[in-house]
């Protein structure tokens, strides 16, 4: 029943895309489409959320796709959960776009693809057979590619789109091969049928690698992340929010679906691979983010970091499952899912915020921003919430999932394998490091963008955004806080998912006294976001009250003091680059071959002193450039064949003939 409803909604979205095409860039097109998508996404979100715990319904089979199989669609707890995430993001993006979309210079390049993109993501999660899954998957990539190219006149965007679509189809082919293995030679493409046949271990492991290659490239794990920081910022901001906050989650869904559901019992080292990948991804992602100046690129890289975090959770769950510690596996999986949910919330919020800044100032470069907290207070407030959440500060939601992941890591000594025992704590250290660095990164992001004094005239005369955008951002911020202080309910919401995948789930949380969070036992560890929040609030109020009552509340405005040497020019402020310098000194040389050159003009010359920073993208240079070079060489070599004379072509034919004749002469 819910499946059918959701399918109808998806169909509506597709229809909306057609409508958008017909309306071209008519005046009412933009509000019409966005309102409609908002309504549909809201409906889907509700249906999905309610059907997480609902009883397993039968698959809906449409006479589409592969003829002799048909297209299977099914909502089980896992897909329902991710559908909820997807459509929550869709809802937020649609409402935000109601305001933001007005500034769109070429709406006819966005409007048709926006609902199509949403439909694609929904269908991926709904699909229950390989063909419809891959079709929707690639359709999702395709529509988002079109959206990335919405500002196609910019050379960088075109490059971004190209890299993106290339990586996307690489991923699709990898998944295709994975499903080919799972389906077996006589083509059991339905998921149900795949579960039926148990693969040999070697094949299953191959499936793992292919799935990592396929879904991982979409999620943005190392070293397949290269497209992400190019493509996500290139799109309009509400699309960036969807791509970063939601589409990556669809990729996570694919991983979970294949590894936990279809591929059969896991090997212990599967988890290890994923854990290591995740740890490396988290650290590298946040370091990249720390060294960027472009607002949206910072956010994109931080997405990579969070994906790494989620992957660690998944890997732990997988290895626990391989060793039959089901409760621990459930905890780990819950942590991963929870973080996926949180990330979709605050990453959307952050992208909305940067979109607001972008429209207000026309600047994406943090070095040209600053002081926006005065000009756009509401945006600043909302983004502050997002930044706090994404830096995993209690009592925000980011901290809860981080805390759960750490609890899971603390369980891992029970694992028998030495490999895991050695590498899990190392990954724990990596995670702790990347969390701390994330906090640093967002201090930098927020401090440079919103605080200080404006670094450019655009920033100086920025205007607060429209009502819709502000509303959505505040709502998301509130959601971040609520999930942070009442995590128990969300976790209980996820219980059916882990139940369906692992056969067990975390103990029910919402019934614990004081609504605190007790993953295993109270004596072991517990956390109560609500109380922490209340404490902080009360003690802060207490302090305010005490001081304002019992002491002076007199305030005077005066010029900046700055040790008595106030440098009043904007340029004298700390820049994003200089803020990152200490950390760059620590990590740069090792991981980025960072080089800093100072050009001092000769004494007396008026030339400015210059300070240059050179960072190598090691992965790009080591992996992708050689590939491109290889293709180039191959094409050069082969291209000679375009310029032969007829006689030479004839000799080719002649050669072919002789070879074949030899074959049949020698044959038997």
């Amino acid at each position, binding site marked *: 029943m819910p499946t059918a409803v959701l399918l109808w909604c998806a169909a509506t979205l597709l229809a909306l895309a057609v409508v958008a095409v017909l309306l071209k860039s008519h005046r009412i097109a933009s509000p019409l489409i966005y309102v409609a998508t908002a309504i549909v996404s809201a409906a889907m979100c509700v249906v999905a959320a309610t059907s997480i715990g609902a009883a397993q319904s039968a698959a809906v089979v449409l*006479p*589409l*796709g*592969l*003829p*002799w199989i048909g297209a299977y669609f099914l909502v089980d707890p896992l897909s329902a959960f991710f559908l909820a995430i997807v459509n929550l993001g869709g809802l937020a993006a649609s409402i935000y776009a109601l305001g933001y979309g007005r500034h769109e210079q070429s709406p006819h390049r966005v409007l048709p693809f926006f609902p199509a993109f949403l439909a694609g993501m929904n269908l991926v999660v709904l699909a229950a057979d*390989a*063909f419809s899954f*891959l*079709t*929707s998957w*690639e*359709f999702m990539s*395709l529509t988002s590619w079109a959206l990335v*190219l919405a500002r*196609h*006149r910019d*050379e960088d965007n*075109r490059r971004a*789109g*190209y890299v993106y*679509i*290339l990586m996307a*189809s*690489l991923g699709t*082919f990898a998944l*295709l*091969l994975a*499903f*080919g*293995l799972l*389906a*077996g*030679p*006589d*083509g059991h*493409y339905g998921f149900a049928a795949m579960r039926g046949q148990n693969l040999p271990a070697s094949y299953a492991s191959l499936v793992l690698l292919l799935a990592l290659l396929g879904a991982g490239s979409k999620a943005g794990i190392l070293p397949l992340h290269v497209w992400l920081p190019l493509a996500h910022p290139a799109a309009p901001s509400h699309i960036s929010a969807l791509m970063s906050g939601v589409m990556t989650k669809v990729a996570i869904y694919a991983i979970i679906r294949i590894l936990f559901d279809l591929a059969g019992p896991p090997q212990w080292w599967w988890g290890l691979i994923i854990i290591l990948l995740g740890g490396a991804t988290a650290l590298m992602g946040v370091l990249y983010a720390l060294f960027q100046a472009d607002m949206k690129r910072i956010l994109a890289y931080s997405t990579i970091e969070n994906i790494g975090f989620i992957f660690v959770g998944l890997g732990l769950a997988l290895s626990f499952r391989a060793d039959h510690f089901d409760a621990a596996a459930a905890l780990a999986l819950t942590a991963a899912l929870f973080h996926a949910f949180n990330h979709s919330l605050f990453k959307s919020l952050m992208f909305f915020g940067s979109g607001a800044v972008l429209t207000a100032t026309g600047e994406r470069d943090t070095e040209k921003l600053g002081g926006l907290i005065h000009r756009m207070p509401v945006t600043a407030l909302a983004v502050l919430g997002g930044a706090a959440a994404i830096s995993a500060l209690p009592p925000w939601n980011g901290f809860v999932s981080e805390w759960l992941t750490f609890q899971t890591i603390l369980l891992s000594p029970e694992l028998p394998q030495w490999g895991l025992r050695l590498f899990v704590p190392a990954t724990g250290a990596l995670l702790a490091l990347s969390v701390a660095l994330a906090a640093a990164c967002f201090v930098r992001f927020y401090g440079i963008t919103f605080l200080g004094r404006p670094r450019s005239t655009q920033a100086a005369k920025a205007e607060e955004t429209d009502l819709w955008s502000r509303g959505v951002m505040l709502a998301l911020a509130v959601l971040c806080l609520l999930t942070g202080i009442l995590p128990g309910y969300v976790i209980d919401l996820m219980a059916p998912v882990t139940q369906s995948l692992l056969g067990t789930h975390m103990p029910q949380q919402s019934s614990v006294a004081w609504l605190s969070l007790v993953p295993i036992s109270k004596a072991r560890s517990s956390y109560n976001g609500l109380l922490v929040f209340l404490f902080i609030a009360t003690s802060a109020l207490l302090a305010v009250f005490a001081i304002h009552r019992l002491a002076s509340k007199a305030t005077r405005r005066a010029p900046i003091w700055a040790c008595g040497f106030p440098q009043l020019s904007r340029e004298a402020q700390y820049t994003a680059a200089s803020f990152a310098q200490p950390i760059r000194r620590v990590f740069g040389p090792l991981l980025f071959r960072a080089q800093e050159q100072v050009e001092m003009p000769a004494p007396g010359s008026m030339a400015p002193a210059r300070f240059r920073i050179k960072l190598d993208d090691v992965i790009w240079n080591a992996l992708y450039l050689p590939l491109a070079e290889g*293709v180039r060489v*191959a*094409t*050069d070599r*082969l*291209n000679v*064949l*375009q310029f*032969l004379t*007829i006689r030479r*072509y*004839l000799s*080719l*034919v002649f*050669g*072919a*003939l002789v070879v*074949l*004749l030899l*074959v*049949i002469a020698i*044959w*038997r």
Partner: protein
Amino acid sequence: MNGIAFVLAIPALSAPLLAALPGYRLSALVNTLASFLTLLAALSLLGWRGAPTPYFLVDDLNVVFIVLNTLVGFTTSVFSASYIGHELETGRLTPAYLRFYHAMYQVMMFGMNLALIANNIGLMWVAIELATLATVVMVGIYRTHEALEAAWKYFILASVGIAFALFGTILVYMAAQPVVGEGLPGMTWTILVTRAAHFDPGLLNAAFVFLFLGYGTKVGLAPLHAWLPDAHAEGPTPISAVLSGLLLNVALYAILRFKMLMALNPGVIATGPLMATVGLISVLFAAFMLYRRRDIKRLFAYSSIEHMGIVVFAFGMGGALANFAGLLQMTMHSLTKSAIFFTVGHIAQVKGTQRVSEIRGLTESHPMLGWLLVVGVIAIAGMPPLGIFMSEFLIVSSTFAREPLLAGALVLGLLVAFGALLLRLQGFAFGSPSEGRAPVRASYLPIFAHLALVLIAGVYLPPTLVTWFQHVARMLG
């Protein structure tokens, strides 16, 4: 019987008529009309097909090809009506040549239909050669140095192909002759298949080698492909469409027929691996060749080579699934590629050039053409929800379960080709538009029709079509 008669007679008769008719509007109309009638006749074959005669045969296999052939023939004639008008205005063609053009068009259609319907391998050979020579002339019709060069190259290579094919045919006859007796029966398909098991396997092997190379030259398989890109690039665009969409299929059809014959004989060499290898080589080769192309039509010509490679690979792998996929891929490729060539034709006219570097930002300067090109290329690159995705999905996934390495190589080729196509597509469709903003007077109808068919096939294959394809796939073994 009468269906067959019409399919052959209408083109055969309208050719001289068109040669006689003055005025390109009228002749274009007649041309379209004739093609349409042929299409109707072909459709009638679906319902009612006569018993095979010594010369003519209609069975499930070739009906697919005949219908496809006449359909694309019809749409192409519609397209060429609007295209040729423009060529006449720009003076690239003179009315005299136009007569010749239309006449040749019908001759070509006649040749291809005959080749498809023929029940006699000798007749099939003659028909294919007829069609080939007709296209040779068409390719050279612009009389520019380049066109003549292309035509000449095509002509020489084709002649060698012809010779090979003939030698193969003779060998088949000699293999058959001791078993089925002298004379006509030894060349009649329906008789050959019944007795093929008793033929001398060795002779069949040699025959297949020659036939594969001979007809393979026209399919454009990798070592034999040389004529194809230039012929596509230099001829009038409708001819490029027909070459890619139809002639390649007809040649492929011939190969398939003989593959079936071989399959019936237990003693012969396995033809599957041979075809699969050559197909794979073509795919990889064409994929890499796509990158350096500077002429838009030559670009898509190479993509035709790639797709023919995929189809041949699929048939080489054999098995119900792969054969089904191969048929689907072939059909989809004909529709898509001809649609692309229609679009490209108009684009080349509005931009006044075929150079890749000088075609930019179409979605902005000519939104309709631009987006149609985007859809077409996305389809040909094998992305959903369009038809080729389904066939490639089946081919790759079914191969991977059987021959992982081959599948890997195939995927590599597909990816490389994908990269090249998308790279060029982004250049064509996006960025700031290049000069040449002449308004389009295009006939979008054929393009829409083809792309719509491809889209529908990608989402929903009608069961009747499926069962029919499956039957054919089983025929192919």
